[in-house]
């Protein structure tokens, strides 16, 4: 299986337990449901065409995926014609080696980075450091998680798990060249400190690495979307610009990408449009006063072609807006790190098993109430609950689920396939619970249900099953 750095997805349950009792994390997470969810709703309400745009976005992605080989060929030809270099990588290892080779041939010592989820996926920072090259994240959120040696906990807001006080403490710990008694009480002063420190890095970096929100086949262009402007400084100032992309980022035309941009910012940050949407095509031109001399695009597979040919193709429509996690009750309770790898929330519950293997991430597709909010808000209408269900089926087929779950399911299946027996068994069970319930109206402990009763009481039954009550209701009509 593919190598995956920092993988703690196998320990999802332990992670969740820890997260639920982490007071700082809980206070940091509180803002998501009250803030971004309401703001997204308000922004979407201002655009009557939003749902039509979602349909169009889905159709564009489906069309592109069905012709992916041809659009990649077109992208490659156009990018090369503009003086760019296109590299392909089957695995994370190959992508890392290509980045290192480009950095070495540029004699790079300092690399600035724009936010890139592919960069996280291939753990490029660790690898560069091991090879004597210093990577500096320049997106403020990514910078914060880098100085804490953490993974981002959200694909759009990497440091959403941190409180202001934690950030202040980290700045005092890491920026030791600054006066220890300086005032860092305000959000503004923290931002200014990071701006000054990173400004210096931007100007002295040898190579800039960014991700790509999209690649345009028509023009051989890569696109990044940011609010800070960090990605733009990362790709404009150094001598070499490396774009980390994956095969499903390509879209056909400038018009197609405009449809996707209209749903991206609104879904991601509740903005009508992100501040900076930058289209990059090749290196600096003759006579250009700025821009990099070399432009490389690395296109990664890392498990995606397998998704293309199977049940998870629809996941490749994902444009990484993060709306699914913003609207997920499980994410809001446990935060992104609990998911134990680069991609958290509902999209991670589908994507992570595809990349690191279901045997390493079996709890993720189960960490859902199937409430369906993720699918409701997805700008490209990915049926996330359904895809999680596919993973649950595979997990069962491959005997990865624990024995208790399997035997419980087997008993239930045995009964469910025999309706009369089911009715009798359930009546007895409910009657039994009801009789005991006359003594104790609420159960504080039940055998086989400690996962429930540990956190809340189980109400006593009403002596009759739902089916029995339903039958009687129909008769009396």
């Amino acid at each position, binding site marked *: 299986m593919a190598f995956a750095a920092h993988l703690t997805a196998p320990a999802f349950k332990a992670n969740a337990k820890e997260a639920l009792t982490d007071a700082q994390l809980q206070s940091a997470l509180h*803002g998501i449901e009250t*803030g971004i969810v309401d703001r997204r709703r308000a922004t979407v309400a201002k*655009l*009557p*065409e939003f749902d039509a*745009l979602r349909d169009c976005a889905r159709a564009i992605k489906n069309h592109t995926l069905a012709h992916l*080989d*041809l659009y*990649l060929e*077109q992208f490659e030809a*156009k990018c090369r014609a*503009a003086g760019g270099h296109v590299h*392909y990588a089957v695995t994370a290892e190959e992508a890392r080696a290509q980045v290192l080779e480009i950095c070495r041939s540029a004699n790079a010592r300092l690399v600035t980075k724009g936010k890139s989820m592919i960069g996280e996926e291939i753990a490029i920072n660790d690898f560069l450091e091991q090879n004597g090259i210093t990577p500096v994240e*320049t*997106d*403020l*959120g990514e910078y914060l998680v880098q100085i804490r040696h953490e993974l981002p906990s959200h694909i759009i*807001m990497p*440091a959403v798990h941190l409180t202001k006080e934690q950030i202040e403490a980290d700045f005092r710990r890491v920026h030791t060249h600054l006066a220890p008694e300086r005032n860092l009480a305000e*959000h503004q002063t923290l*931002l200014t400190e990071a701006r000054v420190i*990173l*400004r210096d890095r931007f*100007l002295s970096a040898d190579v800039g690495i960014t991700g790509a929100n999209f690649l345009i*086949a*028509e023009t051989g*262009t890569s696109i990044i979307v940011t*609010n*800070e*402007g*960090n990605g*733009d*400084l990362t790709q*404009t100032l150094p001598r070499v610009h490396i774009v980390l992309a994956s095969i499903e980022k390509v879209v*056909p*035309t400038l*018009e197609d990408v*405009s*449809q996707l941009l*209209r749903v991206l910012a609104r879904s991601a940050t509740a*903005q*009508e*449009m992100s*501040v*900076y*949407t*930058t*289209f990059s*095509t090749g*290196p*600096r031109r003759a006579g*250009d*006063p*700025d*821009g990099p001399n070399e432009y490389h695009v690395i*296109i990664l597979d890392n498990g995606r*072609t*397998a998704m*293309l*040919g199977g049940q998870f193709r629809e996941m490749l429509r994902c444009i990484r807006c993060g709306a699914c996690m913003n609207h997920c009750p499980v994410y809001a309770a446990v935060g992104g790190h609990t998911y134990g790898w680069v991609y958290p929330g509902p999209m991670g519950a589908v994507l992570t098993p595809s990349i690191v293997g279901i045997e390493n991430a079996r709890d993720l597709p189960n960490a859902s109430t199937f409430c369906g909010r993720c699918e409701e808000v997805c700008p490209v209408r990915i049926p996330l609950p359904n895809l999680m269900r596919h993973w649950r089926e595979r997990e069962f087929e491959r005997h990865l689920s624990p024995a208790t779950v399997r035997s419980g399911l087997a008993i239930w299946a045995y009964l469910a396939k025999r309706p009369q027996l089911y009715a009798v068994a359930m009546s007895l069970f409910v009657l039994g619970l009801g009789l005991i319930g006359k003594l104790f109206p609420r159960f504080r402990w039940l055998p086989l249900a400690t996962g429930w009763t540990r956190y809340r009481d189980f109400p006593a039954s009403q002596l009759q099953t739902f089916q029995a009550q339903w039958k009687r209701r129909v008769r009396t009509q």
Partner: protein
Amino acid sequence: MTTSARETVFASIRRALGVTGAEATRRAAVAERLREHPRGVIPARGQLPAAERVKLFVRMVEAANGSAEILKSSDEVPAAIAALLRRHNLPMQVRRGDDPRLAALPWDKERQLEVTTGASDGRQLVSVSHAFGGVAETGTLVMTSGTDNPTTLNFLPDTHVVVLRAKDVAGDYETVWARVRDAFGTDALPRSINLITGPSRSADIAQILILGAHGPRRLHVLVVDEADG
């Protein structure tokens, strides 16, 4: 190594799709989409007569925390810039690119204003660029890179002043792409096309929005609305 990775990726994609890559119908579908580049859903919001479109553009720039004013003549640009600098207590120095439309402005009318040309090295506080176009739908500026308008001027200075002709304000992005194709073709887009909507910002510190993260803290647009353009 790269060649073989390329072959592996393409072979995997084609296996997954059950195709060879040579199918004429697929190739025709792709060629047609690239040739026709169909417009999808265009929001009605920006589809307005010229004067109202410019007003919407200004409103949307302001909604994105930028500022904008409409000038009757490009001759008024230097004075408007000088007034902006005075208003914010900024030094009377700006850096601009070689854009002939900027070079032709009557800078000498503002004796105190020092104007230099070229890219930014990070030491300039105020830059002046000329936009390729604007999009009323979201108050977005479209900047193209080159000698005329260096990309660094869009990002390094604290205050970014952008001059935009009112007739270049479109209702939607798609209209600007048509102009881009006319001006540059699709074989050689400018190295950078920057769509800019308001000044730089970050909400990465405890989800509180603050302006001026790495790029400009202030974005001011001068829309020049002259009868003859």
